[in-house]
């Protein structure tokens, strides 16, 4: 590689590092142009957002949660129920879904952040199962075991323009506009004074406390933010699939968020989307051959934890830093 070439690459990388949101959105915008499977691309986009939300809690705050499905599913059902049962406008439904996810995060957070250390994982799992149980049994609203159907948003009206969501490519860019917005807000938050406090807590909690940081309140707020992002992903997914499965509240979905974040790279901005692309891509290929999907997931998990704790993007960043 010539000197000019490597200097150019470095300057681009520098620019990208300083504007992670813009770089991420740019890559995501170009993605469907090089990737022919547009329906899969939408899944990658939405689950990437889900993982990005999870990343706030796990990667940036350093707390392992097993309950994020409650936020994702809460957002999905919140949005889906309003659209399917009450014919509410999609935008309002999405906002409601996000708010509901945030509320669930607040409630779970109030109980879970009273615990320390490893308790958090256990409590979030149990509380998320509780949410699963509640939604399962409210079957008149949620459809119970059969899931919620009829979340139909075939067209989106933006003033005079009507966007047809039946074309996967169009749907992708519509979703991207919202996902991009969320990514931008997230970047802003991470760059804010609050973001600096999050870093400090992650680095050294005792020190942060001695400096005057209210650890519990900060953790609660970051959990609520995380919940709202995951809820947005869930709400958009409900619109994407026109259904909401009860499985979106199960611990499988929480495990999926963990997996994607771990695979892509915790605490990195772009990592969750990388993880999403790789994981969903592999799933797409492997399920063509075998049903033993959990075996693969389990083995990948174990290998990641043992040998690649930084994930794919995390390892790339680490290598590049040298």
């Amino acid at each position, binding site marked *: 590689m010539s000197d000019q070439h490597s200097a150019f690459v470095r300057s681009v990388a520098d620019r990208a590092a300083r504007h992670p949101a813009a770089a991420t959105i740019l890559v995501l915008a170009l993605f469907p142009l090089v990737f022919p499977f547009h329906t899969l691309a939408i899944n990658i986009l939405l689950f990437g957002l889900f993982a990005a939300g999870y990343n706030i809690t796990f990667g940036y705050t350093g707390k392992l949660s097993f309950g994020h499905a409650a936020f994702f599913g809460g957002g999905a059902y919140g949005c889906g129920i309003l659209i399917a049962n009450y014919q509410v406008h999609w935008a309002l439904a999405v906002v409601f879904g996000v708010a509901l996810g945030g509320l669930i995060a607040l409630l779970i957070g109030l109980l879970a952040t009273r615990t320390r250390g490893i308790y958090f994982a256990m409590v979030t799992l149990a509380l998320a199962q509780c949410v699963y149980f509640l939604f399962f049994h409210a079957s008149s609203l949620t459809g119970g075991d059969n899931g919620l159907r009829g979340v139909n948003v075939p067209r989106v009206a933006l003033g005079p323009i009507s966007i047809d969501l039946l074309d996967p490519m169009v749907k992708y860019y519509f979703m991207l506009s919202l996902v991009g917005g969320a990514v931008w807000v997230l970047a802003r938050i991470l760059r804010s004074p609050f973001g600096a406090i999050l870093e400090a807590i992650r680095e050294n909690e005792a020190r942060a406390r*001695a400096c005057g940081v209210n650890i519990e309140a900060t953790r609660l707020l970051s959990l609520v933010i995380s919940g709202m992002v995951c809820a947005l992903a869930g709400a958009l997914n409900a619109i994407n699939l026109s259904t909401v499965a009860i499985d979106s509240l199960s611990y499988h979905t929480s495990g999926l968020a963990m997996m994607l974040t771990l695979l892509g790279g915790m605490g990195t901005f772009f990592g969750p989307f990388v993880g999403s692309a790789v994981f969903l891509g592999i799933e797409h290929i492997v399920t063509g051959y075998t049903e033993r999907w959990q075996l693969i997931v389990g083995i990948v998990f174990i290998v990641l934890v043992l040998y690649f704790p930084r994930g794919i993007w995390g390892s790339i960043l680490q290598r590049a830093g040298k």
Partner: protein
Amino acid sequence: MNGSAILSTRGLTRHFGGFVANRDVSVSFPQGKLTAIIGPNGAGKSTFFNMICGGLKPTAGDILFEGKSLVGVKQHHFARIGISKSFQITNLFRDLSVLENVRVAVQAIHSCFDLWSSRTGHGEWADQAEALLCMVGLQERRRERADSLAHGEQRSLEIAVALASDPKLLLLDEPTAGMSPEETRGIMDLILKLLERRTIGLVEHKMKLVMGVSDNIIVLHHGELLAQGTPDEIRSNDEVKLVYLGKAQH
């Protein structure tokens, strides 16, 4: 006791299960003076120190800071009230830069929940951090990772971080531990300079250091207060001599 006390304890006691780490300790920290807490190993200095900076809840007794009780106050309020501490074992934000270590400590007092503005936009916090780094002589190393500093430099950074909240009472736990004589002198000079605007409490092992510069000395032994007073009073105290000073070299 000269001058009014900025912090005083009354009957401060701490039990750990069956073990009594501190019993009925009543002392005061005169305002604007340097108070040293000394005592042999196991005297209960760490426990006492942790209680007055909010890390441990007393089993009994009271702590008064500027007349108000500190018992039950959560630890993260202490920095805002005006009490700041440095840790005995260096406890920094290891992966963050030297400057960021101090900057975030400055910011923490002013703004924790601002989610929107840019952290670098508030230049005054970085400026304050730089000033503190100059005070401890670390301004040249500001961009390096805290982890990469030598031990003595890390101890200095600890103090800078503790100063970030502009405390009225600065509590230092063996700040010169593991430092060379030169570095130790530098820290003691800094401490004396800081006394111009603050009260300082110091837990120390190095007797010579402490006797030479302190205004007030608290001697703990087996968790209880053995003696309290000026260095001269302590030097001439028979009990102290028996227990502690008798073994030290002058």
